[in-house]
């Protein structure tokens, strides 16, 4: 089934492992003074670089497990987004994601996940080879 909203498409064959996406994400999620924690990471199984970030699953394990409905799908971007005011910091979503795409920020006691930058994903914008596209 084709998603009704745009998707972040990862074509890992085009990835050259430059980690520009990680930096773009860290800048998008940080402040001018301090870089944020990136929601995307380059992994190198068998030496081939592959960008890994939230796939915004249509039937998402994180949404299913959240006891308070703090994770929901954004109607326009299609991203699974966290309502930080609803989060009770139980880390169930961190445990539930089958791909390990939600990490935990101990300092702010919040789960970190890709929210597709409200429809303007910085990683795709800066990827020099088209390994990451948003369409």
């Amino acid at each position, binding site marked *: 089934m084709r998603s009704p909203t745009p998707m972040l498409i990862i074509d890992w064959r085009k990835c050259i492992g430059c980690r520009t996406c990680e930096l773009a994400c860290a800048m998008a999620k940080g402040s001018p003074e301090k870089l944020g924690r990136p929601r995307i990471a380059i992994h190198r199984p068998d030496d081939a670089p592959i960008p890994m970030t939230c796939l915004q699953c249509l039937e998402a394990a994180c949404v299913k497990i959240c006891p308070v409905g703090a994770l929901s799908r954004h109607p326009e971007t299609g991203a699974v987004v966290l309502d930080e005011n609803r989060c*009770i910091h*139980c880390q169930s979503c961190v445990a539930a994601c089958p791909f390990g795409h939600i990490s935990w920020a101990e300092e702010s006691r919040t789960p970190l996940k890709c929210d597709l930058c409200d429809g303007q994903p910085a990683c795709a914008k800066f990827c020099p080879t088209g390994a990451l596209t948003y369409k």
Partner: protein
Amino acid sequence: MQLVIDGIPCTAESGETILQVARRNRIDIPTLCHHDALEGVGACRLCVVAVRAHAEAVDAQVVASCMYAVKDGLQVDTATPEVRRLRQTVLDLLAARCPDAPEIQALRERMGGDAIDYAPAVDGSKCIMCYRCVRACEAIGCNAIAAVNRGPQKEIAPPFFDATQRCIGCGTCAAICPTGHIAVTETPQYREIWSQRFAMAQCAGCGAPFMTEATREHLAGLGKLKPDYFTHCAACRQRDAAARFVRVGT
């Protein structure tokens, strides 16, 4: 339905609270015990407001805005002298109980307070009885803690201050506590909370402790996801998923 908050006309749905409608309209009401995901309990009384049934009504009633369901035509004032005085008293009492709690200090800076430099609580308690921990524990489905005793002796604890099978040591109560009152000790082998020791589950990939065994059993037992979801830490799952994707793609 329509209501007026501080002279601003607001639209609301039946069943909403004054606090919800006020926040949506960017009208600030201080709160301590409120949490968007947890049912209101009206514990801290900081969110009190004055309400009148309609525009011509003279008599105002003071209510907790986090609990009071809106009514059509309601006139709400969030900062009358009486409301301010009541909030101030509440805050002074909270400051007397636990002056070291950072939330209380921040509110005193914002709202002012009496000039008293309160001595720290004798028992070192930073608990402000907001019940966030109790309600979060309930939301998770464990109901392991509740208020015990009455009056100044009242405190949050597991039944009989003893180890309980209901607690899974997930640490959510400590994470949601606004004042850092709930103590957690953690080593690679165990986590200690509410004087109860929980064995940590080790990641099947890297061996790092990533949650308590009891939390893992709880999550697997919910039946929402397959039990084998909860064997590896997030970092290992991402690494394994990357390897799987490469295999699928070649």
